[in-house]
């Protein structure tokens, strides 16, 4: 089990990536929220990488979905990619895998968000 952490980098002007490591739950959801808020203040595209995210529940999903809505309203885009099967399953249960939010990998997420 990995400790929770966020690894960030700017992929190209206007496009910022946040990789989530460890377990995304109530205790740390706010840290993701703050990172997204900072990112969307400076970039109009934000990618959330979930390859190393080992756990997600509705608290983490709420942060992602809220930011997705806010960015869409402002003409930007937030995309999620690389979910492991366990995390993907929870995204699927909540109906989020069909609406242009969740992608298989970084390239797809990047292309779609252009």
């Amino acid at each position, binding site marked *: 089990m990995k400790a929770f952490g966020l690894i960030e980098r700017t992929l190209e002007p206007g496009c910022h990536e946040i990789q989530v490591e460890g377990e995304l739950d109530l205790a740390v959801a706010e840290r993701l929220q703050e990172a997204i808020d900072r990112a969307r203040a400076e970039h109009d595209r934000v990618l959330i990488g979930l390859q190393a995210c080992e756990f997600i529940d509705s608290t983490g999903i*709420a942060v992602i979905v809220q930011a997705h809505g806010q960015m869409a309203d402002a003409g930007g885009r937030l995309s999620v990619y690389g979910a492991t099967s366990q995390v993907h399953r929870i995204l699927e249960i909540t109906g989020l895998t069909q609406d242009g939010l969740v992608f298989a990998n970084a390239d797809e997420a990047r292309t779609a968000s252009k």
Partner: protein
Amino acid sequence: MDWYLDASDSSAVTLLRRELRDYLGRHADRDSDVDGAEVAFSELVTNAVRHAPGPAWVHLDWSDRQPLVEVHDLGPGFELRPSLPDDPFATGGRGLFIASNLTDELKVASKTAGGSKVTAKLPVSRAVERSHDPPRSLTPSLPTPAEVDAEGSFGKESFLVALVVEMARSAEAQEGPDAVEALVAQVGANIGGRMEEEYRRARDLVDDLEPDQIADLYVRLKAAINGDFYVIEANAERIVLGNRACPFGEAVKQAPGLCRMTSSVFGGIAARNAGGASVMLEERIAVGDPECRVVIRLSGADGEETELGHSYAGPVQPGDPAT
């Protein structure tokens, strides 16, 4: 199991969730959905600490096949609407939907004294263990009546001897004498290796032990467990020992397969130090002889082979053909 949760400490939910996941993982069968149970549990507990003031209590009962989780809080209560928000991107309202999707029989009840109680069956099943209910052996079992005290109890030493002897007897009855000898030989190899290590460590010995050192180690390790071994002969060809008392006591007569312990401990030590050995249990108290007599042939020099004893191979030397 019961837990009390301080709603102001969000990391408590994380710790409790991990504790639950580990607990489920230790006892669940292979087809269980431990990951799903973990998410559902997280939703139920998170829901209580986020939406109700004050603390929450969590109770888990896994005395039936599936664990039943109960989360109690002091909130005003709520109605369960097991559906997703109409807007797929609404920010809240997914937790209990996820929980209901992953669990069986999710229910919410308002308690008359205030607060609410959410219950659900988690999607895991306790691994089923085979029942074993053998009849008691008809022959007298250990410990013997002489070992029992006035209170009708017997001590640890008696218990441990009984455990070993009854284990060997039962294994022999179920698997046959050869299976017992093989098991005891393995146990002897492991314990004998430890005995040699500590004998060496206490004396700072690194080279191969000489025959008289090997014989000294045998006598000491046996004396330490109430054997009464003595050296009859110790030279480069062989070590011969006598013994007047078995560490297992009279009980060894009920499980003579345990003699293989001596063979394996002695043989392993000799083989490691002399490049191979064979052990013959020439006389055995366990089968009715008045004393034991053990002959350990050290290979190495003449490489004499005998089919009568138990063979033990020496350490593999660099350059030996792979086996």
